[in-house]
């Protein structure tokens, strides 16, 4: 079920009515759990079974780990949880990719391996909830947390519908304690929650789908070699689209949770104002980057072993982070580029980081633009449907387009991209050291009212075609 759909409006209204009716807290949580299963089943009912498997396995495994004293057995139990979750992920997400690459590899040795006819439907949100439940088992194994006291609370943690299919990936220590005691939103929280829902839907429906998606389609759907300007404009449009789409989802999810009285963590912090890639990853998909840091980068040794090992750990983490997004070499390249840029930045900081000129506002602004340009290079691989397309677009972006290169973008689209991306980056730069809440706090009431009115009205008249959020495919 999409947030930007009429069915969700009806669904959420019913959920709210039940949540604020005079029922016991246990019944309210049960209602939320049932609603979450219905929310997920609305896509494809059989896949709810995967949620059940994840829930049952991790509930029991964590309890056994907690009681078990012998380290070998604790490790085996953890492996059971990881195998189950990664097994689900591996089968549904990477099964076909692995088989195709195996076929290619065998072909290089002269072996004609036939990939079996296998149509695997990717369950929506599988990358998100498997990572979320793995974090639970890992935290208990690492003795960072005790198992949840209540199976109901844990089940709700696994399936909580606002963040089930596209995050934020929430730590058990953040969400489960909130389920233990009754949580209802105050009028202020509920109102702000609605405001966040409006903002999130505006980002998705108006900015991502309305303004930017047609531009991206025109460029990335072109079969011809593109001009320098069209390649850059199309890619910047995608940068805006993927941010508005994904951050829009997160903002909506946070708003919905707040309306129910729960707090989810921030997932985006004005990433296009980032200065450098390590800053970028502290601002973009924060719940994933911190997950990778805590459960992959640091256990690999982080930056505690040696310089070389640090670079290896960085690269490995980013490569796997890329692969998390999808079963395609394009995503691996995307992750590899981020790893490379992080490594270059680390080296550069050590070498030149203390130079006074780099600490000026002008230098910061310039470095921000440089970071944005480099991020755009990586987005090409994220969006292009294959390596040939990404190579052609990269080539055009670096000025190697032929004289008769295609210029598919109409004048209106160019204006839209320039205006929207400029406004987006200005907003990010303005708010890079603050929060959305602080910014709204300092705005005049009439301006807040006008913005809420404007966003709500444009959402209604844009209508949208109920496009799925981009990150649903991950």
């Amino acid at each position, binding site marked *: 079920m999409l947030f930007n759909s*009429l*069915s*969700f*409006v*009806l669904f959420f209204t019913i959920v709210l009515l039940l949540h604020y009716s005079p029922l016991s807290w246990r019944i309210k949580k049960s209602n939320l759990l049932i609603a979450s299963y219905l929310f997920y*089943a*609305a896509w494809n*009912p059989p896949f709810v079974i995967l949620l059940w498997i994840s829930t049952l396995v991790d509930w029991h495994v964590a309890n056994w780990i907690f009681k078990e004293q012998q380290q070998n057995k604790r490790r085996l139990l953890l492996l059971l949880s990881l195998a189950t979750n990664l097994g689900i992920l591996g089968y549904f997400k990477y099964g076909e990719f692995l088989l195709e690459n195996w076929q290619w590899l065998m072909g290089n040795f002269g072996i004609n391996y036939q990939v079996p006819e296998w149509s695997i439907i990717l369950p929506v949100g599988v990358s998100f909830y498997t990572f979320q439940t793995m974090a639970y088992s890992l*935290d208990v194994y690492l*003795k*960072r*947390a*005790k*198992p*949840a*006291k209540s199976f109901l609370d844990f089940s709700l943690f696994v399936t909580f519908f606002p963040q089930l299919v596209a995050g934020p990936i929430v730590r*058990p*220590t*953040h969400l*489960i*304690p909130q389920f233990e005691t009754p949580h209802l939103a105050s*009028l*202020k929280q509920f*109102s*702000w929650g*609605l*405001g966040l829902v409006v903002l999130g839907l505006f980002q998705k429906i108006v900015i991502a789908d*309305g*303004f930017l998606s047609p531009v991206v389609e*025109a460029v990335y759907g072109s079969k011809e070699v593109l001009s320098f300007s069209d390649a850059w404009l199309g890619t910047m449009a995608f940068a805006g689209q993927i941010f508005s789409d994904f951050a829009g989802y997160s903002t909506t999810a*946070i708003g919905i949770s707040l309306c129910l009285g729960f*707090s*989810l*963590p921030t997932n985006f912090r004005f990433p296009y104002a980032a200065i450098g890639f390590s800053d970028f990853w502290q601002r973009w998909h924060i719940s994933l980057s911190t997950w990778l840091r805590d459960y992959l980068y640091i256990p690999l040794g982080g930056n505690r072993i040696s310089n070389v090992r640090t670079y290896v750990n960085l690269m490995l983490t980013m490569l796997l982070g890329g692969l998390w997004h999808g079963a395609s070499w394009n995503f691996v390249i995307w992750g590899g580029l981020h790893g490379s840029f992080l490594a270059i930045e680390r080296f550069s900081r050590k070498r030149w980081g203390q130079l006074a000129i780099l600490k000026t506002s002008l230098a910061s602004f310039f470095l921000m633009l440089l970071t944005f340009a480099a991020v755009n290079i990586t987005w090409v691989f994220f969006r292009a449907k294959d390596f040939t397309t990404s190579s052609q677009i990269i080539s055009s972006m670096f000025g190697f387009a032929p004289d008769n290169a295609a*210029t*598919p*973008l*109409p*004048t*209106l689209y160019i*204006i839209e991209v320039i205006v929207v991306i400029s406004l987006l980056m200005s907003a990010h730069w303005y708010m890079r050291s603050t*929060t959305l*809440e602080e910014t*709204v*706090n300092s705005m005049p*009431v009439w301006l*807040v*009212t006008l913005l*809420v*009115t404007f966003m*709500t*009205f*444009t959402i*209604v*008249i*844009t*209508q*949208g*075609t*109920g496009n799925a959020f981009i990150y649903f495919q991950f």
Partner: protein
Amino acid sequence: MPLSTSNSNIDYRKVPERPWMKIIIISFVLVLFLIIGWEFLARKMHHQPGGYLSGMDAMWAQERRKLDMPDNKIRVVLTGSSRMLWAADLNIMENKFGTRPLQLSLPGTSPALFVKDIVENTSFDGIILVGFTPFLFNWLTEGYFGTDALQRYHSESPAQWLSTKLHDPLAKNLGFVDEGFSLFELIDHYSVLPERKNSKILNQQGWKLGDTFDDRQTDMWTPVEQEGSFDNEQILNFWLPGLDLNNVKTPEEMAKMVEEAIAFFGPLVTTLQKRGGDMVFIRMPSSGLYLERDIKTNHRENLWLPIVNALNVPAINSMDFPELSTDLEIPEWSHLSKKSQDVWSNLITSFINDAYFQSRNKDINDVLKKTKVQEE
């Protein structure tokens, strides 16, 4: 050990200190007034309530599912491209046939796959009216919209089903819910800016051609009916890139298309006839550059006649009869106006009856009125 990391406090979200109740109430009232104004504007621009129910694929799937119901009384199915969609008035045809036809035509799409689907995957044993749009008919795949329609039919999610049910009452009462009146459609179609070489010209992408009601009854949109109007010109500009008269099919290419069509439809006609049903082919009317292209390629002799003769099916070429073609209003060369739709629907049923009798030497009503009781 608490259920926590080293930081045992959850960082709850702060809420900006603003008078939220006041903001929400004022915003709500303002939005309501703006929507009322927007609705007035929509109706002034001929976007009427009821004119656009759920998306094309959702509506097609809904109609297609009627054939799967065990005791359905469907005896006539309309297939073809948008020309059949705009030509058929279902109420008039119901009156004439004595049974309401099921409208399964799909714009930009050949009837081929859908006829195959009906013959092979249902027990339908009535009459399939096959709309024949020159050249589009011979594109024997999903066409522009077939994939989405079939996917929706086969795997509509519960959420999609529910959204359709919620959307349609809104569309029946609010004009601005028309997809053609969405903000970005309006921006695209009314922007006039200097265009870059070889870029898409946004206000030549077609826009709104018709209104679709219950049962997929489709009528031409009033502004398009006025030849020379802005909306009429937009549709014509949309057709033009595909109507290069210097680049038309050769006789050899058309001969190959004939072979493929016969190979495709032949077995389907036989199968349908064996269980008591039949097909009637109707070449749909056209004018302007579309007709010029058909004349230039000698479509009637090179494609139409070889196919219908080889398939041995009752067939009506609208262009052979002025009352079915040149006497009618086809404002943008391809689809009938609302008024002409009524005329064509009234007349075509008689032509169908006659063509069927001439071809099969029996009354088409023998097939149309056959019921399970009669079979038993």
